[in-house]
C-alpha cells in the first residue's frame, strides 16, 4: 500500500508541476478509466457527428458550400482517428472502443441526436455546436494526459475554422431574403439550448468534475465554460441580426456577463437516456455501416495475410 501511495503522490506532484502524463508513466486506475471514457466518448462524438452533417452533402445549395462541407466532415473523421489512437495509448484497442459504441454501451455527445432539418442547420452546427465544442477543446489542449493534449492542439485548429465557416453560412442567410433569414433564425432557435447542454450538468450536479479538476483533465468547470460561450455567442448573433431564443437573456453590468434562462434538464436527461429525436437512427446508421463493411475489412486482412505469406515463401 505504501508503494501505491507513493506512486500516487509522485503522480499528483507531476500534475501539480504541470508535467504531462505519458502512456508509459504510472497512473491511478481511476485516472486511466476516466480518460478512456472521456476520450472514447469524444472520438465517438466526432464519428457520429459526421451523420447529421453528412446528411446535407448531397443537398448543399452551392458547389462551394458542398466542397466546404465535404472537407469539414472529412476533418471530423480525421479527429475520430486521432482520438481512437489516443485511446489505444491507454491499452484499449480501437475495435473494443468501437464495439462499445455499437452496442450502445458507450456514450457520445447528445447534440448529435438532434436532426438537421434545413440547410441552415449546417450553419448552426458549425457556429454553435463547434463553437461550444471549442470551448472545451481549447481547455483540453492543456489537459494533463500528453497524447490527448497533443491530439487536441491539432483538432482545435480545424474546429475553429469550422466554427467560422458555420457562422459565415448563418451570416449570409441572415442578410439574404426573408425566407433565408427565417431559415437561419429557426435553426438558431432549435440548436441554441441543445448547444448549452453540451457543457454538461451544472457544477452542483457534476459528480466527476472535482476529481477531473484535481487531475487537471479539466481546467474549467462546466458552468464557467458555458458562460464564456454565451457571452461570446450573444454578441455574434447581434452582429448578424439574429435573436437568441431566451427571453431572460440580459446583460448584467455588475457581473459583466449575460444573465440567462434555465436549461430544460428533463429534455437533456431524456436525450442522454436514448430518447432524443435521432438516437436510434444514429446508432442504427453506425451499426449498418459497420456490419456492411465487415466483408471489406475481412478482405483487406485476408489479402494482407496472403501477401505476407507469399513474401515469406
Amino acid at each position, binding site marked *: 500500500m505504501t508503494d501505491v501511495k507513493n506512486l500516487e503522490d509522485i503522480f499528483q506532484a507531476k500534475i501539480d508541476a504541470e508535467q504531462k502524463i505519458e502512456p508509459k508513466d504510472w497512473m491511478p486506475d481511476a485516472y486511466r478509466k476516466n480518460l478512456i471514457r472521456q476520450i472514447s466518448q469524444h472520438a465517438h462524438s466526432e*464519428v457520429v457527428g*459526421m*451523420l447529421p*452533417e*453528412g446528411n446535407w*452533402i*448531397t*443537398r*448543399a*445549395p*452551392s*458547389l*462551394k*458550400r*458542398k*466542397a466546404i462541407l*465535404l*472537407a469539414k*466532415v*472529412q476533418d471530423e*473523421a*480525421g479527429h*475520430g*482517428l486521432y482520438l*481512437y489512437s489516443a485511446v489505444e495509448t491507454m491499452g484499449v484497442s480501437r475495435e473494443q472502443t468501437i464495439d462499445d459504441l455499437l452496442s450502445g454501451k458507450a456514450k457520445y455527445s447528445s447534440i448529435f441526436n438532434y436532426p438537421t432539418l434545413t*440547410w441552415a442547420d449546417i450553419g448552426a452546427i458549425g457556429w454553435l455546436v463547434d463553437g461550444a465544442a471549442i470551448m472545451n477543446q481549447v481547455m483540453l489542449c492543456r489537459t494533463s494526459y500528453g497524447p490527448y493534449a497533443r491530439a487536441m492542439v491539432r483538432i482545435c485548429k480545424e474546429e475553429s475554422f469550422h466554427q467560422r465557416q458555420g457562422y459565415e*453560412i448563418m451570416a*449570409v*442567410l441572415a442578410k*439574404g*431574403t426573408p*425566407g*433565408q433569414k427565417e431559415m437561419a433564425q429557426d435553426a438558431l432557435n432549435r440548436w441554441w439550448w441543445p448547444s448549452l447542454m453540451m457543457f454538461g450538468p451544472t457544477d452542483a450536479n457534476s459528480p466527476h468534475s472535482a476529481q477531473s479538476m484535481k487531475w487537471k483533465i479539466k481546467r474549467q468547470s462546466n458552468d464557467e465554460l458555458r458562460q464564456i460561450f454565451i457571452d461570446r455567442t450573444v454578441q455574434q448573433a447581434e452582429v448578424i441580426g439574429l435573436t437568441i431564443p431566451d427571453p431572460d437573456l440580459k446583460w448584467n453590468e455588475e457581473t459583466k456577463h449575460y444573465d440567462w434562462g434555465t436549461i430544460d434538464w428533463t429534455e437533456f436527461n431524456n436525450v442522454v437516456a436514448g430518447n432524443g429525436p435521432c438516437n436510434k437512427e444514429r446508432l442504427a*446508421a453506425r451499426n*449498418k*455501416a459497420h456490419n*456492411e*463493411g*465487415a*466483408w*471489406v*475489412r*475481412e*478482405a*483487406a486482412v*485476408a*489479402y494482407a495475410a*496472403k501477401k505476407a505469406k507469399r513474401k515469406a515463401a
Partner: protein
Amino acid sequence: MIVPNTMEQSALFTYTLRLADDLLILSQRLGEWCGHGPILEEDIALTNRALDHLGEARNLLTYAGQVEGKGRSEDDLAYLRMERQFTNVKLMEQPNGDYAHTMVRSFLFDAYHLPLMQALQKSTDEQLAAIAGKAVKEATYHLRASSEWIIRFGDGTEESHQRAQAALDNLWTYTGELFESDAVLEEMTKAGVAPEIAAIKANWSKTVDQVLAEATLKRPADGFMMTGGRKGLHSEHMGFILAEMQHVTRAYPGVAW
C-alpha cells in the same frame, strides 16, 4: 472567321461540360457514402475522392460557362440544368451498391480519367491543359487506390472475390460510353483540344487487364454497351440525383449562399 470560331466554341463548351458532368455526378454519388464507409480510413478516402472530383468539376464548369459566354456560373450549370441537359456517361450515375460496386465504378473511371488528364495536359486549349495539369496528381492517386482495392477484393476472401466479379459484370456494359466518338469529339480532336480517344482506350484497356489479372478477376466480354449519356439520355436514377442535389437551390431562386 466568325462562324467556324463559334462552331468550335460550341464544341468546346460541350466537350468541357462532358468532362465536368462525369466528375460532378460521380462526386455526388461518392458524397452519399460520407459517414457510412466500411472503416474510418475509407470514409476519409472516399470523401477525399468526392472532394477532388468536385474541385475539378468546378474548374471545368466555370470554364464551360466562360466559353459559352452567356454568363452562366458553375452553380447555374450544376443546379439549373435538367436531366436532358446533363452529359455525363451513365456509369457515373449508377447507384453506389455495395463497396465493390462503388470501387469498381471508380476503378473503371480512374483507369480512363488518368490517361485522359495526362494527354489533356498537351491540349491546345490552355485552360483545359492547366486544369488537367492540376488533376493528374490526384488522378494518379485515385487510380492507385482503386486498383489496390480491386486487387484486395479479387484476391481477398471468396465473398469479396464474388462481389467484385459481380460488380464488374454489372458495370461493364457502361464502359463503352467512355470511348464513344461523335462530331463534337472529332472536331475537338482535330483542333488538338482533345486527345485521340482510341489511345485513351488502349491505355485504359491495358490498366484494366493488368489489375484484373493481379486480382484474379475475369474481364467481362464486350457485349452490348449502354449509350445515351452524352446526349442527355440517362437512366431513371438521374432524375433523383438531380432532385436531391438541386432542390434547395431551386426553392430559393437567385439568392446567395
